[in-house]
């Protein structure tokens, strides 16, 4: 009986979350499309960009983007294209937006993945370590470091790192993104460290709080008084503490993906973030729309995956949802 009951809950929860995500993405796509009309000036002129203007060209842009149609019909036309992977043509470079993105997405994904890996490998163990020595001088020092790390702007940290390790010590390359995988990783090291510093400080705090919270639980004192070895207790505590940490990591990756703008500009990397910044400056609206929508989609889908994972990993969440 219990099984069937649980399967029903899981199914319902999954469907509700899927529907909510779809609804959210539709709402976001609407706002993203409206950007074209929210930008000051005539949309046709904005879409024309720096090209030579003539009444005929403006008229052809009006028909191409259906600017004379009602707003909703324009929106559905645009959405239809987006669903087929067509985000229109970049005004600035006169190439399809999809091609432009495809050229750059790899670099940004590599950077985000590299930073993510650094965060996981460093922040979580340090968080566990600090929690195990809570209140000590080491713990307090790491904590102060984390508070500073959370608050420090990535571009300022990046430029200082660039000065120390790139210019002064000449350990890491200052410009370029490298050829081949190893060289690429070598070039991405400083940017990834910069990116990982802020987000790593957050993951550290989260891990420390989670482990401390578990250590205060009754089951720990019970396990200790029953004579379980410290090692067994530790494994119990860690397994429970990791649930919130692992679920937060999904969102960390999504945010890293969206947070590469400043780091890419700082290190002159030609990724998605740098493309967005220049597209905003040049009012290249189709590119801005595409990147904003894709970033929102990555974040929303990651949040969905995290929720489903949480649901699968923690029976307490299932029980609460069943009520």
């Amino acid at each position: 009986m219990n099984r069937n009951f649980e399967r029903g809950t899981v199914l319902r929860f999954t469907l509700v979350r899927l529907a909510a995500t779809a609804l959210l993405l539709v709402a976001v796509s609407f706002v993203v499309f409206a950007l074209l009309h929210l930008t000051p000036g005539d949309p046709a002129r904005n879409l024309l960009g720096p090209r030579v203007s003539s009444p005929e060209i403006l008229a052809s842009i009006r028909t191409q983007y259906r600017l004379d149609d009602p707003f909703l019909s324009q929106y559905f036309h645009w959405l239809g294209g987006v669903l087929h992977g067509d985000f229109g043509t970049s005004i600035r470079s006169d190439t399809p937006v999809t091609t432009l993105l495809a050229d750059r997405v790899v670099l940004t994904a590599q950077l985000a993945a590299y930073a993510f890996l650094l965060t996981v490998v460093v922040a979580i163990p340090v968080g566990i370590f600090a929690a195990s020595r809570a209140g000590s001088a080491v713990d307090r020092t790491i904590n102060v470091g984390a508070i500073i790390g959370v608050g420090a702007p990535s571009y300022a940290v990046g430029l200082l790192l660039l000065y120390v390790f790139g210019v002064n010590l000449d350990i890491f390359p200052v410009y370029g993104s490298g050829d081949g995988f190893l060289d690429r990783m070598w070039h991405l090291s400083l940017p990834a460290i910069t990116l990982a510093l802020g987000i790593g400080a957050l993951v550290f705090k989260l891990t420390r709080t989670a482990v401390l919270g578990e250590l205060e639980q009754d089951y720990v004192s019970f396990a200790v008084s029953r004579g379980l070895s410290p090692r067994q207790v530790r494994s119990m505590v860690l397994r429970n503490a990791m649930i919130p940490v692992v679920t937060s990591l999904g969102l960390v990756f999504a945010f890293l993906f969206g947070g590469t703008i400043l780091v890419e500009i700082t290190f002159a990397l030609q990724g998605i973030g740098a493309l967005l910044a220049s597209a905003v400056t040049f009012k290249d609206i189709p590119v801005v729309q595409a990147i904003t929508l894709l970033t929102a989609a990555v974040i929303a889908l990651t949040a969905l995956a995290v929720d489903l994972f949480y649901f699968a990993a923690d029976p307490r969440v299932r029980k609460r949802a069943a009520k």
Partner: protein
Amino acid sequence: MKRPQLTPVLCAIPLAAVAICVVGAQWIVPDATKQDILLGVTPAGSPGHRFGTDQLGRDVLQLGIAGARSAVVGPIFIALGSMLLGVLLGSLAGYLGGWVDLLLTKYADLLLALPTTLIALVVAGLIDGGYWVTVLVLVVLFSPTDIRLIRGSVLAQSSRPYIESAKVLGLGKGRIMFRHILPNVMPVALATMLLNVAFALVAMSSLSFLGLGVGPGVPDWGRQLSDGRDLLGRNSAAVIVPGVLIIVIAAAINLLGDWMQERFEQRARQR
């Protein structure tokens, strides 16, 4: 018996210095934006310019001192504005409950899920807004944390005996809200506002690093860093001065806010 607290004192020093620069920049460094294009870039330690000059021959240190104003004033308004929104909408949600609460909570959740820098960049960048429009955009983007905080605190206070007795005494909703609940929420709100100033400072200067917000020629740390990026080899102080300024100020505000938050939490627990 009371031990002197180290954190607030250490944080107060740089913050006081910045406050002096914000108020008195035009008297301390009247020539901060004076250009000397013929002089151009000079390295740190050159005569008359301890930290050298940038491409336009402006003194790096003077520009850094003058930049305190645009770095701090906007963020203070962002923190105030978003807390105002937070108090308004948060107390509305917490006190009225029902569908108002549901709607406001969903709204806050939606805003909270957005990457702040990206949205601010897109919106402020496409509108071409300048400094105060950017401040306004950030007020909206910063408000969800405040809305949730105030809502949560109002809910926590509402169930306490003293509010129950106020209700029994027949006090009006508005009076209970403003005279009894909000004053008790104030300490937490203050600490959160301080932390928001730090985050807003980072957000604003990030945007000006990307060329948004402050107009050209206005002294600003973010802009100074983006200008200084190409000078790393010739006058590294052009990067180090504004970079260290931002990091130190953000850290001081963050540490102070964190310290305040911890103290208020301790006090609340002791009650």
